[in-house]
């Protein structure tokens, strides 16, 4: 009896292992490493889960089910590296989506390059990421090298070159201000009238703002994360910086919390982003309506970039899947080549997104069209207007 039990258990184990391996061979795996801390962060995660569920319910990728493995990296490089390693070597994913934070995406690049897994970035903007020269990395958002030019030119030409900068110790915020300062210096030969780095999580900027006010600037740049940007904008009026001084923020200003929480202080704030909720194209209107209904928020460019990423990834996976051999390494290569083959993708982004084969910033910074946006109304029913868009050539800002 005991022997029969052992034989039966072994058979059952063998069959289940076989079934699992067959199922694994059939599925397409997508790994995600993402900052899922805030309410909006969770909603980005939900958007990916819902989209993949829709793919699966409508037949998956060429009939194959898509497995989604979602990890939170808390915007910490250590966790991002661990997630990338786990997704590449243990979960054996075909493609990685991530991360939200540049400081996390940057150390993920050597990991995925060594493991030879294609990675597609939904949000990170730091130009350093694609400068690594990896053939496995693709960026959907606009790189900071384009943002700095458009924002610096727009501010200098519309407001003036006497610019005061207040930024927080966050990679994207510092990168934005410092690259804008460098660009204004190189193009107009002007240094900022005031430059200050606030402390971590500091929300009382009044001492910095008073010093900035004393320099009588043409424009004030508040470059921080959501809370810092909101406080800086609100307090700029509290300390008496006149309305005539142009307010500028980094792409964080596209997040819904900024106009909602800043209220009237958001009016007139200009920022460069990849998408404006006030976009009048039918595709954008439908998207805004859909996100509002499903997730209860007006989407900023974080949502639109994720949507674009998923929309362009599906046909790329379908194309790659046709050449899948079952060998993970060559399947990953097929996915990479399929993504690299995306040209002139037109989605929610303000301009076409194109990639190419070489692992250079020219080939891998897909979106080269930042859009200049200005808030015309703050509060819950905030409104924006598009001040202009510009499409750069591939090597601009390098």
């Amino acid at each position, binding site marked *: 009896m005991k022997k029969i039990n052992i034989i039966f258990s072994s058979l059952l184990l063998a069959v289940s292992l076989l079934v699992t391996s067959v199922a694994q061979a059939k599925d397409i795996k997508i790994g995600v490493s993402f900052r*899922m801390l805030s309410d909006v962060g*969770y909603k980005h995660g939900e958007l990916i889960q819902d989209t993949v569920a829709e793919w699966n319910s409508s037949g998956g990728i060429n009939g194959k089910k898509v497995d989604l*493995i*979602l*990890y*939170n990296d808390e*915007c*910490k*490089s*250590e966790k991002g*590296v*661990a*997630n990338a*390693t*786990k997704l*590449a*070597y*243990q979960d054996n994913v075909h493609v990685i989506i991530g991360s939200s934070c540049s*400081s996390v995406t*940057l*150390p993920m*690049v*050597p*990991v995925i390059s*060594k*493991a030879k897994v294609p990675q597609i970035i939904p949000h990170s903007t730091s130009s*350093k990421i694609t400068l690594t020269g990896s053939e496995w990395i693709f960026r959907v958002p606009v790189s900071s090298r384009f943002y700095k030019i458009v924002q610096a030119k727009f501010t200098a030409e519309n407001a003036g070159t006497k610019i005061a900068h207040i930024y927080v*110790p*966050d*990679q994207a915020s*510092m*990168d934005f201000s410092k690259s804008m300062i460098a660009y204004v210096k190189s193009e107009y030969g002007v240094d900022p009238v005031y430059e200050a*780095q606030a*402390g*971590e999580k500091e929300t009382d900027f009044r001492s910095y703002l008073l010093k900035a006010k004393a320099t009588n600037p043409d424009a004030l740049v508040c470059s921080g994360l959501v809370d810092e940007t909101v406080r800086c904008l609100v307090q700029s009026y509290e300390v008496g910086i006149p309305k005539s001084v142009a307010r500028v923020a980094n792409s964080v200003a596209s997040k819904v919390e900024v106009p909602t929480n800043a209220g009237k202080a958001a009016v007139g704030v200009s920022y460069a982003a990849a998408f404006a909720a006030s976009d009048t194209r039918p595709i954008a209107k439908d998207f805004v309506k859909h996100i509002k209904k499903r997730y209860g928020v007006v989407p900023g460019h974080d949502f639109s970039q994720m949507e674009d990423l998923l929309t362009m990834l599906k046909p790329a996976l379908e194309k790659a899947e046709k050449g899948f051999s079952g060998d993970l390494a060559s399947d990953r290569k097929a996915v990479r080549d399929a993504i690299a083959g995306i040209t002139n993708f037109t989605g929610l982004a303000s301009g076409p997104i194109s990639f190419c084969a070489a692992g250079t910033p020219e080939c891998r910074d897909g979106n080269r069209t930042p859009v200049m946006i200005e808030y015309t109304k703050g509060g819950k029913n905030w409104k924006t207007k598009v001040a202009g868009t510009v499409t750069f050539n591939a090597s601009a800002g390098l």
Partner: protein
Amino acid sequence: MDKFKEIIRQYPFLGFIIAFIILMLVPSVFFTDLYQSHLASLICINIIVAAGLNIVKGFCGQVTVGHVGIYAVGSYTAGCMFLYLGSGLWLTLPAAILIAGLFGVAFAIPSFRLEGPYLALATLGGGEAIRLFIENGDFFMSTYGISNIPQPIIFGVPFDTPDKYYYIAMPVMLIAVYFSFSVLRSSVGRAFMAVREDPISAAASGINVKKHKMLAFVLSAMFAGGAGAVYAHLPPGYIHPNNYTVIEMVTFLAMVVFGGLGHIWGGIIGAIIITIVYDLTRPLYEYQLFIFGLTIVLTILFMPKGIGGFIDKYFIDRRFKTKTGAASK
């Protein structure tokens, strides 16, 4: 078996050689992918920090919540030495240990006058001050972090993948644990424990309390500094101030508390379990911190002396039963 135990007791170094051989074989026998090697290296690094924390907290009874700052000092010593001098691990590791030791002196000074929650607050402030200093300093690459810190090359073989780097992290961990045991068994270790139990009695017995508190902080800091350097070189070799926050400090403390204060083995088991639990709960990211917090609360409620205390109790009970059994016969 008894003879073997006796030999190990007489020559503890032999035990570590055996452990080294076993741990060398672990990857080829048990690991099925590179991620497990990465996790094993992280466990080794956490064990070094936990072993160091046990010296100051477990043996000497001093409260410290700023060790993560010293861990950051170790990492950034390695990072900056690479960045500005092009140094590799063999130079950065000893330098990180030495510099972290100096920071240990600074952390020890408040312990002369403060204790309990006041000392905890002082060290917490120290740890956070270090992180903020790094975060705001251009010299330390600020919030950009330091990248491409190289892995060592031995006989032309680069240890630049998780599976290879394990063979760097593991021996360093074993040396740290061996050193930790040596401290515990020495007169210094006994003096630490005397200070922990009652500083006044210890002083009355001729123990220089200040000196031993200082020594405990310095030794402990050297462990954290070493761990920080090993972490800095861990592939892909990237460090960022975000990885040295209070949350990381709480995780280190959880390892020591879960393992059992004053028990080296407990600290090791705590580091292994906490790292693995943290990893296993990764897909449950919405509940991860809740599960993690609940584990700590339940441990403190039902195993206040941690796993080490549990093991102690088991051995004491067994000894008692054996003795009473023999007496009744």
